[in-house]
């Protein structure tokens, strides 16, 4: 009987473990569930609501389903809230193909975007690369229903990045400096980098750089960092707000010929909901937001709550 009871225990433990596994799976796929936070006007401090102009307006603020987008949405939303705008947050919605229709049908009214990504999404034939070119091209692509506010200096763009040691060894400052040595180097980037127009083809045509070896790896994040640090790859495709630029001293090679489009943080708003208060408050935030600040804020967020980091920063720069 003793043995049999142990076997029964295992039989009971199995479904429990399976249930745990299912829970683990569904929580790791949490990107699909959009968290909705309603901030009613009663939540706002009495000072901000009493000092608010009557026409401050109301907005539903959305974000894509990754930390940086949620952090940016919190930053803009909290700054607008401080100016008396009634804010409803619908964060972590999904990818561009999901939230752009939501902007158009009025489910959300405001989302922080990357100007060099939203432009080709709306107009696949767009060729604008620099911040100024994109800013000029955006209004036509957005149409009259949506308006782009001022782009922030902060960018989250692709960069060709090497370690400090590699940069020193080959005296690398810009991507062009790679041309004479690239054949000895291994380059790591997402698989699609091999074929996308601003990937390997542009490296070759714009800068004359052809790497000796290419290996595909997970986009951005810890795999690329680790592979760079341990020397598995010599150069990698790293996003410019990656914490490793401050933590590991990675060097992003300058891109003077705009191989990669600028990716300035640019709020997109439903034109019908836009008030002068919203415009001024959002532009004031954008003016202060640099890549270094955004990177630092992302490090502070870590895996924690973006909203508290957003509020703290806004207070420190007098916008909260």
């Amino acid at each position, binding site marked *: 009987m003793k*043995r049999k009871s*142990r*076997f029964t225990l295992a039989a009971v433990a199995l479904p429990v473990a399976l249930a745990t596994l299912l829970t*683990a799976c569904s929580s790791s796929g949490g990107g699909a569930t959009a968290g909705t936070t309603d901030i009613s006007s009663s939540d706002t401090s009495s000072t901000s609501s009493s000092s608010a102009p009557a026409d401050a307006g109301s907005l539903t603020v959305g974000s894509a389903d990754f930390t940086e987008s949620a952090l940016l949405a919190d930053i803009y939303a909290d700054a607008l809230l401080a100016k008396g705008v009634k804010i409803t947050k619908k964060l972590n919605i999904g990818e561009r193909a999901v939230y752009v229709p939501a902007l158009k049908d009025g489910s959300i009214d405001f989302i922080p975007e990357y100007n060099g990504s939203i432009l080709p999404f709306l107009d696949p034939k767009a060729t604008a690369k620099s911040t100024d070119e994109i800013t000029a091209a955006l209004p036509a692509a957005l149409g009259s229903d949506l308006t782009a506010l001022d782009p922030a200096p902060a960018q989250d763009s692709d960069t060709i990045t090497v370690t400090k040691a590699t940069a020193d060894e080959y005296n690398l400052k810009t991507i062009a400096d790679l041309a004479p040595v690239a054949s000895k180097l291994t380059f790591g980037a*997402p698989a*699609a980098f091999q074929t996308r127009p601003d990937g390997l083809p542009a490296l070759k045509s714009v800068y004359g750089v052809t790497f000796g070896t290419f290996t595909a790896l997970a986009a951005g994040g810890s795999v690329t960092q680790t592979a760079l*640090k341990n020397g598995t790859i010599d150069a990698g495709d790293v996003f410019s707000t990656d914490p490793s630029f401050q933590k590991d001293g990675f060097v992003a090679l300058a891109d003077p010929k705009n191989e990669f489009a600028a990716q300035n943080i640019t709020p997109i708003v439903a034109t019908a909901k836009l008030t002068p208060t919203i415009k001024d408050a959002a532009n004031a935030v954008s003016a202060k937001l640099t890549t270094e600040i955004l990177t630092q804020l992302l490090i502070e967020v870590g895996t924690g709550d973006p909203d508290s980091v957003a509020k703290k920063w806004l207070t420190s720069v007098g916008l909260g």
Partner: protein
Amino acid sequence: MSDLPSLGLVPGWLTTAAHWWGKHGLLVSLREHVIYTVVAVLVAMLVAIPIGLAVGHTGRGSFAVAGLANALRAVPAFGLLILLYVVVSPKIHYRDAIGWLVPRGALGSLLPVEIMLAVLAIPPILTNTYAGVQSVDPEVRDAAYGMGMRGWQVVRQVEFPIALPLVLAGIRSAVLQVIATATIAGYLPFLGGLGYLIFNNGLPQINDPDVGYPAMIGAAIVVAVLAIVAELLLLTLQRVVVSRGLSGRYRARSLPTQSSYVTANP
């Protein structure tokens, strides 16, 4: 999502020769996938079967092993893979290829993948092995001791053969899980597998009619076929290795029938 290339492109994609040959073609990917799977399951068997036999035979530690094995089942594979890569790969400085098994530069990536897959494969083999041994009829075990067998002889000649159908069932479910999970191997540098066509190359350019959605579905179909073929092979193996005394799989004429008894013993 109505913009996705049509599912109707999948048969055409699968029957295009260029998608089978080439650096990241289906054949190379399939070969990589099978290597990742076989290595991981063999490692898991080497770890899990001895422990399972020991626990089942002695009855000691079954609670701890059941808890541990079931806890391992809850480990999220992708998180474990990235964690292992960050921790393990900086310690690997070997860059050359190892025969046909490890491509150049890939050892630091392959070890995390194999450890992650083995961690997934251990629980079903381990729990099935000790459950199989524990479910051996105590009278059979007593009879073995009564015949003068020693402990390890009982394990090797009685308990393991009797537990074998359950052990093999555990290996089958481990193989299925590993085949499914090995699709994430391509996230690490210098590795591929069928998942390369699904996650690495397909997902970021999902709207592309050549490497996007049709390739993802096509590669997923190959993963599914591989899983079914592996299952059938292991079932065949089970028919061969499991004692006929257990499976009751006798050829009809090798057993005396009821009627032959009747005629033989009037």
